[in-house]
Every structure is written in C-alpha cells, then in structure tokens.
C-alpha cells in the first residue's frame, strides 16, 4: 500500500501548504479562495480517513454557502470606509499564540490517546438493527443522540434572529436583497439549469441517509445553495421575513422533532424514543422536515438582514 501512502502524504502536504498560505496572505479575497480550496482538500482527507459522512458535510457546507458568505463579507469590508486602525503587534501575537495553543492541545490529545482508542462504535453498530437504519452515523444522530440533533436544529434560529436584528428600524419585516450587481445571460442560464439538478441531489442526500452517507444538513446546504443561486440571478425575490409561511417553514424541522420526541414519552416511555417498528418512517419524516427548515435558514443567513421596507 505504498501508493496509498504516497496519496496520503501528498494530501497532507497540500493541506498544510494551503492552510499556511490562507493564513499568510494579506488580501481577504485571496484568503477566502484559499479557504474554499482548503475545504475541498479536507473533503478528500475525510474520504481517505474512511469518513464519507464528514466528507459530504465538508463538501456541502464548505464549498458552497461558506464561500459566498465569506466573499460577501470580504467585499463589504473592502468597500466599507473603515477608520479603525489595524490591530497592533501585541494583539496579533496574542491571537497567534492562542491559536498555536489550541492546535497543540488538540494534537496532544490525539497523540496521548491510549492504543486502541476508546470507542463506542461496536456498541453503536450492534444496536443498529433495532432502529431499522443501515447507516450508523444516522443512527447516532437521529436515535442515540437525537437530543443533540434537536438542539442543532434549534440553534440555527437564534443565529438567524441575530442576522435579522441588524436590520434598521423601518426595514423590519421587509425582505433581504441578494442580487448580483450585474446579472447577465450566463448567470440567468446557470440559475435555470443548475437548481433542478441540485434539488434532486439535495433530496437524494437526505432520503439516502437512512442507509448511506448523507443527511438533512448536507441536503439542506445543497438546497439552500440552489435557492441562493436563483436569488442571485434575480429569478426570484427573497420573501419578506414577516411572511407567516416562511416562519412556519423555519421552525417546521425542530417542531416535528419535538412533537415526535414528546409522543415518544407516551408511546415508547422516554423523550425522543421511537415506538418499535416505526422508527425508520418517523426518522425519515423528521429528516424531511429538517431538510426544509435547514435549507430555508441557511439561505436566509446568507441573504442577510432585511433591507426592503415592507410595502
């Protein structure tokens, strides 16, 4: 397996080079490009580490919406007339030292793990048939640690409220505007061709997650990217944030998960426990509601605060 080792060493060197360059480069636009390339390499690394679920998440979140979010922040910074002085050398050294401390701590933790490392993986796989699922990662996320997934689905909402709270007084309840400054034929064509494919892939990732790598977050990120593309090309307008249907969609995922969880108290004897033989359809129903909520929340996070006065 020396060839596989060559691939791994090459990947590791590339990751280090891109990471170092992303930190060292002065221009924010170039740094974001470096960060997107870094995300792509990380997806490759996760595949080599036999973690396709993590690779899918990295691919779906890191190479799509994150790039757009960081690039619009960089563009806004470039055009803002900033008067604040750049941070002094003391602050820069302190930030650098803290980052090194965190990286060294993580490295020490990994190196100091006993061999073999403690793991719950055999136990997770052993009880998987009872859940009706085939993918152990989905089993952990939706059955063993469903409470974590519930909190994760809720935490997107305070983040969105934080973005919305940046709206000025008169714009509250209005619609965010996310449109390319100069939409032209190429962008319009792409926004018409790509979303049909993207919607299929997004739903597939979510539906597939019961037995294969995938999940609501990955699928939601792909769906959100497709909506954002249509918004950028000006094919559709972002809905006003006071719209009731939009808000129902935003809370649907967490609400369905909470409803199934509460029903579990009566039917299966514990919060977030699934009644026997019904776990797989229930999990898929939760995932379908979650994927919609996550897609809408992620797209609105990228779209930013409302800037159009409600009419």
């Amino acid at each position: 397996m020396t060839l596989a080792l060559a691939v791994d060493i090459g990947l590791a060197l590339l990751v280090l080079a891109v990471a170092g360059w992303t930190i060292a480069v002065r221009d924010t636009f170039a740094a974001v490009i470096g960060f997107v390339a870094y995300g792509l390499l990380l997806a490759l690394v996760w595949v080599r580490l036999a973690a396709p679920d993590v690779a899918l998440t990295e691919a779906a979140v890191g190479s799509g919406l994150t790039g757009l979010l960081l690039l619009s922040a960089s563009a806004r910074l470039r055009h803002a007339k900033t008067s604040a002085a750049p941070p002094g050398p003391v602050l820069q050294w302190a930030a650098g030292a803290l980052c090194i401390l965190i990286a060294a701590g993580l490295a020490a933790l990994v190196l100091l793990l006993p061999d073999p490392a403690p793991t719950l993986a055999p136990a997770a796989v052993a009880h998987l048939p009872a859940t009706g699922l085939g993918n152990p990662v989905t089993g952990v996320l939706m059955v063993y640690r469903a409470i974590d997934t519930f909190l994760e689905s809720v935490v997107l909402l305070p983040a969105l409220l934080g973005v919305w709270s940046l709206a000025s007084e008169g714009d509250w309840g209005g619609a965010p505007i996310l449109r390319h400054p100069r939409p032209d034929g190429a962008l319009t064509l792409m926004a018409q061709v790509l979303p049909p494919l993207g919607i299929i892939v997004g739903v597939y990732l979510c539906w597939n997650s019961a037995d294969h790598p995938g999940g609501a977050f990955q699928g939601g990120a792909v769906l959100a990217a497709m909506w954002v593309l249509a918004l950028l090309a000006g094919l559709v307008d972002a809905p006003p944030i006071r719209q009731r249907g939009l808000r129902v969609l935003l809370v649907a995922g967490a609400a369905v998960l909470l409803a199934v969880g509460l029903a579990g108290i009566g039917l299966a004897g514990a919060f977030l426990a699934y009644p026997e033989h019904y776990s797989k359809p229930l999990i898929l129903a939760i995932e379908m509601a979650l994927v919609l909520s996550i897609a809408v929340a992620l797209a609105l996070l990228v779209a930013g605060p409302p800037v159009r006065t409600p009419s």
Partner: protein
Amino acid sequence: MRWGERMEIADFLLTVAVFVLAMVALGLVRILRGPAAADQMMAAQLFGTGGIAALLLLGVATEADAVIDVALVLALLAAFASVAFVQGAAPADEDIKEKNHP
C-alpha cells in the same frame, strides 16, 4: 515495479490519482502567484475539477461507493462557487453608479 510487469488496476488508479494531485499542486502555485483576482478564481476552479477527479479515482481504487456522492456534491457546488467568486470580486453597487455617473 519493473516495466512489463502486470499492474493491479487499483494501483494504476492510485498512480493516476497521485499524478492528478501533483497537477492540482501546480495549480496551487498559480493561486499563490496571482496576480489578479480572476487568476486566483480560475485556479480555484481548476483545483475543484482536479480534486473531484482525484476523489473519484481514490473512490474507485478503494471501492468506497459513497465517494461518488461526495464528488457529485462537490461538482454541483463548484459551479455555484464560481458565481460566488464573481459576486465577491465584482465592485459593489455604489462603485458602478459612481463610475457611470461621476
């Protein structure tokens, strides 16, 4: 391995993956050197294409089916990222207005 010896298909695919990764590294040099934002953007796109190719080769060589899904998502979002890059590199609305109406 000497010339003429039989090569396992997995080894062949891994060799090609190493080659593609080396080409991606050369593309990386292009990112490093710039000089314009457009060069960096195109290099990042090339990086995406090469990365997806290496990923598929690795996936087939190691018989990991889920890799094809990862490649699918990356290919789909690479097209999206190009739009994001152009959006980020384009001057903001105010700048265009200022240029058109000085």
